């Protein structure tokens, strides 16, 4: 055997390297496939398809968007032409027919066309309307008639209505919300006075004062309500008369229209602009129609805020625990046992943490807080029910092992000689730990935080029992004192996906929404991680060459 021949054990090494590379490639491929699937299924959600008018063999006329095409599945004993296709048509008009989607064999279709005068109306209620505009009226006054005339008059009128609707929204969220909030506070204040067992005269005086204030507020509310009522009446003053493809007619207040389109007249750029506008609505608006339409802003907000709260809780807690374990505790069997216990904590199913959070945080801690600080609201719980704070703390417990382990690794990587350098200058152990070791371990701590945040953002099960809801009436942050309401329930993207996808009455309509929301969840988590990674890299650069 000549010495320059490749030894066989080297060939084994080569094939192992190939195997490792292959495993990595497979992983990457799976991730790409996941993203591709989400994009393919969710990306089309905002893209406007043309409106097709179909005349069927039995004389029916249908108008809608073609969503899907599938080969016809053969039933037992039947033979089907191989090219036979079924199409899924979104026909909308849920208020007329009760369904949005229907399947039909392509062979039933006699003729197809894309008439230019057909419109799509996105509505506040009942989903889309597909059809033609017939008349525009204000009360009994006819403003316009005929598809073209009505379309021309509709645009400016609709814009005006959108402004009015915005004014109503502002009124409701602003002054009216504030007055309601104030009245509720006064009511609670009254109960507080009643519970305080003051001397009768003092109690009387304070109650009288509070009642007077409440009456004042109520008068204010009446005035606002009247204004709201007149605004609403104005909003509904104009109606558009619509005609479905089969000739049925329907009146709709112009103010109830979100967006009106004639998709068959659209060019590519129009569609692109529409896409962007719908994407903006999706990200920044509140949901409508039991979450199947509108945006998912409250869910994004809830997810991000919950994760931030969790980080605020878990990082100091985990870092202090790791500091004690690594720097102060005497390394021995006890510390080893604690470390094993901490690691095992990471393996406990997350729903168990949810149960613990419910029992400990919600009932025990929250219940005690209510009895101590909010007795006037009882029996309505304030903190004694699920809320964003309890959700965040529950997830903090769930992720604390990750932070502890990462921090310990960061601390262990700070060389002993660096600590000795500090001690040799006369620094105490405490000073050395907090001024030298901890800053040097900061990148490691941030790694732990990144992992914790990633884990927390994806966790849904435990949150279902400690405060996450399908639809929260208000964000946990608003303009009413104290501005941040940690006791409020919150929405979450993960739960939103489940709710929209599997709990909604209209699964066909929401299927793309599930993918779009999932994509957004990934985007939110990725953004948060990238920010944390950027901070970590900054720290690393600052301490170039430092450990971890």
């Amino acid at each position: 055997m000549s010495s320059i021949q490749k030894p066989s054990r080297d060939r084994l090494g080569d094939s192992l390297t190939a195997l490792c590379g292959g495993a990595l490639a497979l992983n990457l491929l799976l991730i790409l496939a996941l993203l591709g699937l989400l994009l393919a299924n969710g990306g089309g959600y905002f893209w406007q398809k043309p409106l097709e008018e179909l005349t069927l063999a039995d004389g029916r006329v249908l108008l809608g968007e073609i969503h899907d095409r599938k080969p016809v599945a053969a039933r037992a004993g039947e033979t089907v032409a191989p090219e036979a296709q079924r199409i899924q048509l979104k026909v909308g008009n849920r208020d007329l027919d009760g369904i949005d989607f229907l399947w039909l064999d392509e062979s039933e279709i006699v003729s197809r066309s894309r008439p230019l005068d057909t419109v799509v109306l996105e509505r506040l209620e009942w989903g889309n309307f597909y059809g033609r505009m017939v008349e525009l009226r204000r009360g009994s006054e006819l403003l316009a008639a005929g598809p073209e005339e009505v379309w021309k008059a509709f645009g400016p009128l609709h814009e005006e209505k959108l402004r009015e609707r915005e004014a109503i929204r502002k009124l409701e969220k602003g002054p009216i919300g504030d007055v309601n909030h104030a009245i509720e506070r006064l009511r609670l204040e009254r109960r507080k006075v009643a519970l305080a067992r003051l001397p009768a005269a003092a109690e009387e005086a304070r109650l009288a004062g509070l009642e007077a204030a409440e009456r004042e507020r109520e008068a204010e509310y009446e005035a606002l309500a009247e204004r709201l009522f007149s605004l609403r009446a104005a909003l509904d003053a104009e109606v558009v008369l619509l005609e479905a493809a089969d000739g049925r007619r329907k009146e709709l207040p112009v103010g109830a229209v979100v967006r009106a389109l004639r998709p068959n007249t659209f060019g590519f750029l129009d569609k692109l602009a529409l896409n962007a506008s719908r994407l903006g609505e999706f990200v920044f608006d509140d949901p409508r129609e039991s979450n199947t339409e509108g945006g998912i802003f409250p869910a994004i907000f809830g997810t991000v805020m919950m994760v931030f709260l969790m980080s605020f809780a878990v990082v100091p807690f985990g870092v202090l625990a790791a500091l004690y374990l690594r720097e102060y505790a005497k390394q021995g069997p006890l510390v080893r046992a604690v470390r094993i216990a901490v690691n095992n904590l990471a393996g406990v199913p997350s729903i168990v943490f949810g149960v613990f959070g419910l029992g400990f945080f919600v009932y025990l801690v929250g219940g005690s807080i209510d009895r101590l600080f909010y007795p006037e609201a009882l029996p309505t719980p304030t903190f004694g029910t699920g809320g964003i704070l309890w959700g965040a703390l529950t997830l903090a417990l769930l992720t604390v092992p990750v932070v502890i382990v990462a921090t310990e690794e960061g601390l262990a990587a700070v060389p002993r000689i660096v600590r000795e350098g500090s001690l040799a200058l006369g620094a105490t152990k405490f000073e050395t730990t907090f001024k030298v070791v901890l800053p040097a371990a900061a990148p490691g701590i941030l790694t732990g935080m990144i992992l914790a945040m990633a884990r927390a953002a994806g966790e849904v099960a435990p949150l279902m029992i400690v405060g996450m809801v399908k639809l929260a009436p208000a964000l946990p942050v608003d303009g009413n004192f104290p501005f941040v309401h940690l006791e409020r329930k919150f929405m979450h993207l993960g739960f939103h996906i489940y709710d929209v996808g599997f709990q909604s009455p209209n699964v066909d309509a929401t299927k793309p929404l599930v993918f779009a929301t999932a994509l957004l969840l990934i985007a939110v988590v990725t953004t948060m991680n990238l920010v944390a990674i950027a901070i970590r890299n900054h720290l690393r650069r600052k301490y170039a060459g430092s450990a971890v």
Partner: protein
Amino acid sequence: MSPTSTAPRESEMISEPTSPESPHLAAPAAPIPPAPAAPAAATRPEEGWPIDPALDPRMGETILEIERLSLWYGAKQALHEIWMRIPKRQITAYIGPSGCGKSTLLRCINRLNDLIDEVRVEGRIRFEGSDIFDPRTDVNSLRKRIGMVFQKSNPFPKSIYENVAYGCRIHGIERKRELDEIVERSLRGAALWDEVKDRLDESALGMSGGQQQRLCIARAIAVEPEVILLDEPCSALDPIATAKIEELMVDLKERYTLVIVTHNMQQASRVSDYTAFMYLGEMVEYAPTQDLFLNPRKKQTEDYITGRFG
């Protein structure tokens, strides 16, 4: 690097290896109570103070007296009854094969061995007359007065400025102007100022090895210690950086007492005034550097410095 660069600085050193009792040594010897020395001297007459003041008039004032120091790591004895006086504002070097206990002895002087569990010490080290192992001694102020530079440079993962200012901040100096002044003075003292004055805010970990080691010296002198312990400060440096540090040490002698561990005999002979040769935890010979290298009194010393020795 030329071995002659720091040739005989004190000409009288070679002139007379022995001299009669000299009056100016009586004073520094006074604070050392004769009590512990006496019995040892009685039982092991050739041990005790290896440099008899009677024999060495040039030593001058001493700052540290190590008396019969023994140290155990668990059951293993690492130092055996070390006796030595360390002269003030001079450079004292420890040489010896690795593992002989040089670092251990050095780390006793600022009590850095306290950090290691299972260390047991017997004997005494007097610093300006008081015992550093006395339970009343405040270790942190002791370490402020006895600084240390380590074998491997160990700057903190902070900016150059913060590295130097760290010790001052620890000891309560917070005013920016005062800190600026100290940082500049210390960096100048460590011959580093001109190289880094424009990048004080950059990470210290981006400096070269030699610069890092000089930064560690600057950090040590920033808190104005009286003694600086240097544990093989050049072992990881190239010859040019080594020469710089050696030069610096000779300059620092003006203000500080330096105790340096080295296993580089040329270095010891170039920079130090006194040299102690250690072997297997024992102090074999301690003498003025020139004497030790030119006329070693012990066979082991001679074997070691002539390289005939493992």
